[in-house]
């Protein structure tokens, strides 16, 4: 999946989380920890991937998320 497709799908996931948690309106970097949990869970389901512990060693930015998803789909 190309980076742009991943971004689009991420937006759809974010919209779903927003419906569940109206406060989570800023893509996940401004989210409280609960919204971030839900977001990560939904991303794993949507892309059929599993994040590992080390994936969250550094700050989660949009670019890093796209990179991680792309790498796990290889």
């Amino acid at each position, binding site marked *: 999946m190309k980076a742009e497709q991943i971004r689009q799908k991420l937006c759809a996931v974010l919209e779903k989380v927003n*419906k*569940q*948690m*109206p*406060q989570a309106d800023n893509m996940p970097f401004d989210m*409280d*920890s*609960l919204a*971030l*949990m*839900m977001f*990560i*869970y939904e991303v*794993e*389901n949507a892309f059929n991937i*599993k*994040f*590992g*512990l080390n994936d*969250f060693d550094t700050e989660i930015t949009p670019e890093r998320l796209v990179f991680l998803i792309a790498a796990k789909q290889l």
Partner: protein
Amino acid sequence: MDKVKAKQILTEILQNNGARIAHFPSQKEVSMQTLLKDAQVVAKKLINANCGGIFLAAPNSYHWLVTYFACIISDTVLYTADFQLSEAELNSRIEICKPCVVLKADNINDLLVMEFAPQANALPQMREFGFVQFTSGTTGGAKGVLMRAQQIAANLVSMQELCAFTPSDNFLLASAMSHPMGHIFMLLTLGFGGKLTILESPVFLPRAVADANATIMVTPPVMLNSFKNMPDMVERLKKFRYLLCVGAPLDETAYAFYREKGIKIMNGYGMTECVSGVAMGKPDSSGKLIPLACCQIKTAPDGEILVRGDCVCGGYINAGSICREGWYHTNDLGEFDAQGMLTVTGRKDNLAVLQNGYKIALEPLEEKINRVKGVSDCIVRVVRTGASDSIQCEAVVESGVYKDAQELRGAINTTLSFYEKLDTVHIVEKLSLKGNKKQRG
């Protein structure tokens, strides 16, 4: 319960060979024999260093457990605080307890190999096992509640009467081990031969609910309010024997939703000053609570809930006695029905209890904000928004100090504790609600 019997109950937990400690998502498991061996290694070092106290502010981990049991074995006081507090907040607590070792996220994994410097200035209370939990300091400075083995064991035995742990239970530890309920449920799980599942990162909680085969979980209402909107998660929750909801009351509509789905929720009511829970609800009792055997509960003429008994702690390490005239005054309001079931109806003081379990004292928070550069007056409100709460502030500020409300919010939030941080700030010329607490909403 006497001191010797209480210490025996806590020590016997370590002899429970059937219990296991599992990690999620790595699935790594550790036996109780290994935990006992490691705790003995650390206990020996504590004794050799004449160490009276360890300060521990770290996320849940196997080494957290090793530290806890090493303190029991060596008769050392363990001081704990929420690891999410700022460096300055943690330092103010460390200053109070003067420990010989400070364990945080960045060094706790070195516990088994680190050297403990000999301690000469141990405080008097340090020659006996104790577990000190610092309260959040919502209504003033942080207070360290000193729990002795007698109070912990009394609470443990009473909790087991209602929670009925079995060796086949797998407890998903979603709350901090330093949290009153996290602490007691950790002991119950290990004591009754079950499996304790520790999350290696909180972001994996929803996946753990789905994949860790847990049977019991302690959770604040905010989590249950969120899961309600996730059909797949609701299905997963049906596998649990029960969920224990703590920190704040779960509203009746959420109870009704889960009851209809066949999901059992017990609610717990307690406070750090009484080790953990003092009253629990049965899965079908909604908000009604049964007082635990380790304590006696009554309501004062003004409705305030008062507690006394074996699980009420002796005192604060830095603020004197917990009880007045033999009773702990909770500041919560409640009422008993004809069957002796307790319902918590509100707060006596102006404290907002958030859906994540944290409490915010509104006036002290406003005083903190008023000390921020450029702020001349403000008012804070807590507004329920869907699953959680939004902390909102109106502020009157000097012109030209901040370019917009976002910048002001950033400046204010750097001065607040993590659970107090504002979600929205509106700059206004005149406060709309000042001086009328009833209108806070």
